[in-house]
């Protein structure tokens, strides 16, 4: 061990120190990759952690939670448990978002509980001495309109115990007294600590949900059997569901998981490109030190020792890279955290990330992944080192014969990889995760990377004559050098292929996605003004617009058509989806869906007549239901059972959506009320802006305190802005991968030039000018970059198809119309070409480091 360490220091470390430049470049590359990988994971982890923590504080220590999916429970349900033999404790809980009136402050979570019953379920403590604290929570019981505030919220609102607080909710604004402040523990930590607690009766008065509660929490007597619990569940009304308390958390986490995985894989790509760097450096060291290796072997070193030496080099590079990634990641993660939590909040579940927590597990994962990646990258060259025969110590020339064969062998392997990739594509996802798809993507990259030596050799020899004629001797010399070094340069070219492919694929995918979303926004999110109940969005439209306001809105302005809607958030198995009853007939006059399955002309009138529902693509993909099948759900006590007429695209949430006619819902089932309404111009007016602001003013004057208003254009712009912000993360990751690839090209070229300094000086000595040498190096770079970019483009086009049709469909359930963004590609590919060519500059500098007279000195 000691002697190995000594050998490692003398043989490897000193060499690395002597070639500091290369080593630092490679370490920087890995550091970038590791930083991206780690910070993406940390950011997602922090979002999930804050979400699950909230959910766990909510869950308290209940054994089961009773809910009515998509609705509320009648309070009478509680009576069943008063004397139930299996139940020991029970309590109720309701939540909603409310806001301090007349304040621009964001809404906070208001929790309604029974202060007595809740004590055994959840932890929440009041600040202050024992007596005061008891007083505080007794106030909650005795005195209506008292509220307990968490410490951070009280500070934010500038309130102390005893202060008054006007709270705004959907139906009304009410005056509260702050009865006390909560210690930062348990329930007070939910939602990043922005919570208020009120008595359940006050909660019902404020929200208008008289006699209704969100959920009932149950604790069973000791020794209650699973069969008894099963019995209890069966005895409940059909539309109620008895869940383990973790169910809500799990369904939320399940939704985020695909997003997390996609980001992780994307972030791994930059580490993957870093892996090419490690490979190229270790391979270079092996190649350049063959003679020394042969001498070591001749002196009695075991092949295993040499293998271990180079493997350790890989591990060392990985470790250094990971260490260098720490400060880099610290900066990156701050930016990512915000973007990631915003995306999760918009697309999946509401999260509020207070602070980053360093999870030991995540750090261990990031270290392990970085080091293992580097170790794997060093594996093949280390094996090469092990096989250097000791007799080479005596030989004058390096083995030449192997080269051609290995280029052809790599090309065969490449074909194998591509074939396997094609075979994996049709496989179904494993547990909602497109594992086979990801593996196929990896094989695609590998295939193209392995193809690169073959491509390089053939490109260089194919263009030999042409280039010599067009560009003179430097181009021809460059072509020869590239052919000679094809196997070695292939690694950097492989890295460039990977980065360009990712870039191309994502440009195509994001562009296709955005174009589709634009069309969807224009057609489906049409309308001039969107009106919802106050705090409607944040409360997931649970509180309908009061009847008198609905009447007023109907009669408000004859120049507008109204499309009313009611949305419910439901679950089918563990799959969350929305049901939206909407004014279909009027909607079709002004807007349309993006149809995916079924004949729109035939379905539109049928949907308007209430003959069936339309389902979103995601819903169809997740449930396996298709047009002609029946959709069944229990909604607010009505059993909805309707045929599915067609499938439409929708990008509102990651869950699915089911659309049905609002008018026919009322006719067939019950009055769904309105959770929102959109206004369309009946006829295009002369001055739309003026008309619209007139409407706005009219609504605000009458019901400004009860309704939220958003302009149609603002809403559509906001949707696209969120889209762009989401993909900004992706773009940053990509640019980093490209930077790592350019670093690879720079190192490779420099190394190639340094190795050939004798040849370059010979060219100078026989009459070559420095300019010709420079031009030759640039031509070499051009060969590498053209091959890398060309193959990368081809690989990227294939990849984009796989991402859209396999990865996205399997992990999110949605697809989009395929459009290639030629302008973006046309603009960025030459830019990448320029940047990668710029990577030749250090090589040019290196070319002139040795004076030409060194030629005459003995070797």
């Amino acid at each position: 061990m000691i002697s190995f360490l000594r050998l490692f220091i003398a043989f490897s470390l000193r060499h690395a120190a002597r070639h500091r430049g290369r080593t630092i470049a490679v370490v920087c590359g890995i550091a970038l990759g590791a930083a991206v990988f780690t910070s993406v994971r940390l950011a997602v982890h922090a979002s999930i952690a804050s979400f699950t923590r909230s959910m766990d504080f909510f869950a308290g220590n209940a054994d089961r939670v009773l809910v009515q999916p998509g609705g509320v429970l009648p309070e009478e349900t509680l009576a069943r448990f008063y004397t139930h033999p299996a139940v020991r404790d029970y309590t109720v809980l309701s939540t909603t978002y409310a806001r301090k009136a007349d304040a621009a402050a964001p809404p906070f979570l208001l929790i309604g509980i029974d202060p007595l019953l809740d004590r055994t379920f959840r932890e929440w403590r009041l600040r202050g001495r024992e007596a005061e604290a008891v007083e505080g929570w007794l106030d909650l019981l005795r005195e209506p309109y008292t509220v307990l505030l968490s410490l951070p919220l009280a500070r934010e609102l500038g309130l102390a115990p005893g202060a008054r607080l006007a709270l705004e909710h959907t139906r009304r604004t009410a005056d509260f007294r702050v009865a006390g402040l909560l210690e930062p523990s348990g329930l007070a930590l939910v939602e990043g600590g922005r919570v208020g607690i009120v008595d359940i009766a006050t909660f019902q008065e404020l929200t208008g949900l008289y006699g209704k509660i969100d959920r009932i929490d149950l604790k069973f007597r000791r020794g209650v059997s699973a069969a008894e619990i099963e019995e209890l569940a069966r005895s409940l009304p059909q539309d109620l569901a008895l869940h383990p308390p973790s169910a809500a958390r799990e369904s939320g986490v399940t939704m985020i998981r695909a997003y997390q995985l996609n980001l992780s894989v994307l972030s791994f790509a930059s580490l993957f490109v870093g892996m090419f760097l490690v490979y190229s450096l270790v391979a270079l060291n092996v190649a350049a030190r063959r003679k020394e290796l042969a001498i070591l072997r001749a002196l009695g070193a075991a092949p295993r020792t040499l293998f271990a030496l180079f493997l350790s080099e890989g591990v060392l590079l990985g470790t250094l890279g990971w260490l260098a990634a720490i400060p880099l990641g610290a900066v990156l993660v701050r930016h990512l955290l915000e973007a990631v939590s915003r995306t999760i909040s918009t697309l999946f579940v509401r999260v509020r990330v207070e602070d980053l927590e360093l999870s030991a597990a995540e750090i261990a994962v990031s270290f392990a992944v970085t080091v293992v990646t580097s170790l794997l990258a060093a594996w093949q060259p280390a094996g090469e080192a092990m096989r250097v025969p000791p007799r080479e110590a005596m030989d004058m020339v390096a083995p030449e014969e192997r080269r051609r064969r290995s280029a052809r062998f790599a090309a065969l392997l490449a074909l194998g990889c591509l074939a396997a990739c094609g075979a994996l594509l049709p496989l179904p996802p494993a547990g909602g995760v497109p594992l086979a798809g990801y593996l196929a993507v990896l094989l695609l990259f590998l295939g193209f990377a392995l193809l690169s030596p073959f491509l390089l050799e053939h490109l260089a020899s194919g263009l030999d004559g042409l280039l010599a004629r067009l560009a003179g001797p430097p181009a021809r010399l460059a072509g020869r050098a590239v052919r000679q070094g094809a196997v070695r340069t292939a690694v950097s070219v492989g890295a460039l292929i990977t980065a360009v492919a990712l870039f191309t694929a994502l440009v195509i995918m994001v562009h296709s996605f955005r174009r589709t979303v634009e069309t969807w926004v224009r057609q489906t999110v049409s309308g001039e003004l969107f009106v919802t109940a106050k705090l409607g969005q944040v409360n997931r439209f649970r509180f309908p617009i009061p009847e008198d306001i609905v009447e007023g809105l109907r009669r408000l302005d004859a120049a507008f058509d109204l499309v009313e809607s009611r949305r419910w958030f439901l679950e089918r198995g563990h799959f969350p989806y929305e049901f939206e009853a909407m004014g279909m007939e009027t909607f079709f006059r002004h807007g349309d869906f993006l149809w995916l399955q079924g004949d729109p002309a035939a379905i539109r009138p049928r949907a308007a007549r209430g003959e069936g529902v339309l389902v979103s693509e995601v819903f169809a993909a997740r449930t396996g239901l298709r047009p002609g099948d029946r959709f069944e759900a229990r909604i607010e006590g009505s059993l909805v059972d309707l045929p599915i007429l067609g499938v439409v695209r929708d990008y509102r949430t990651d869950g699915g959506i089911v659309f049905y006619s609002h008018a026919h819902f009322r006719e067939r089932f019950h009055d769904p009320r309105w959770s929102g309404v959109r206004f369309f111009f009946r006829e295009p007016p002369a001055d739309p802006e003026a008309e619209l602001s007139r409407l706005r003013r009219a609504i605000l004057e009458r019901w400004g305190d009860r309704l939220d208003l958003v302009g149609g254009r603002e809403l559509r712009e906001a949707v696209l802005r969120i889209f762009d912000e989401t993909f900004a993360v992706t773009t940053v990751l990509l640019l980093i991968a490209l930077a790592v690839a350019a670093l690879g090209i720079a190192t490779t070229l420099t190394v190639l030039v340094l190795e050939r300094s004798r040849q370059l000086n010979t060219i100078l000595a026989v009459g070559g000018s420095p300019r010709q040498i420079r031009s030759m190096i640039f031509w070499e770079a051009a060969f590498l970059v053209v091959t890398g970019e060309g193959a990368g483009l081809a690989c990227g086009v294939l990849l984009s198809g796989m991402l859209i049709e396999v990865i996205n469909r399997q992990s999110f359930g949605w697809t989009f119309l395929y459009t290639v963004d030629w302008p973006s590609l046309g603009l960025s590919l030459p830019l990448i070409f320029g940047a990668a060519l710029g990577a030749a500059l250090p090589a040019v500098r290196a070319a002139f480091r040795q004076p030409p007279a060194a030629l005459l000195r003995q070797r």
Partner: protein
Amino acid sequence: MSFAEPCPGAIVCARNLTRLFRLGAGTVTGLDGVDLDIDPGAFVVLKGPSGSGKSTLLSLLAGLDTASSGELTVAGERLTGRRPADLTRFRREVVGMVFQSFNLLPTLNVLENVCLPALLAGRDEGAARRKAEELLERLGLAGRARHPADRLSGGEMQRVAIARAVINGPALVLADEPTGNLDSKNGEAVIELLARLNREDGVTVLLATHSDLADGVASRTLRIRDGRLIAPPCGA
């Protein structure tokens, strides 16, 4: 200290030529005040032990290196204080170089190696090719024109290098220990070739060596030690 006049008619004319190398804090003297005239058409052998300054002198004459002080004129061109572009043109047109370790480009074949200086100089490819083939023929390598350069024996490599050195029709060929990596039979053949070029084409040859193989063909022998020319018996 000698202070000779410029020498009309000489192809090489060096006055007080000095080359110092900076090495860490100190300096190493590579060449120390050399005065030298060489007449056109001469076959000059430069002899001296290893480290005496032979290569340093040759690299100055070839325009690969610049002197620390002193004057140097080759074929009527002053080499001191010239721009790199002028030195490149000088190397293309005036001198040809032969090295101890051949320095053929392994990625080119024999013919391409020979043609390279002509192509770098922007000459017509067809003409260069014909000239190269003719030279290879003369040097007895006609059959090997298409072989990769790195598959030849040492003696063959050096003959290719000589062809490469003269393809642009230089006035002066500088050979730095061209036999150093060869056995004596091949070494003699190389010397004989250089002598033939000198005889038949009138090329001036300056050959640095520490062997005695070239003694028979030299029209003049110079001795160098510690960077100084040891005053030779005149004309010897």
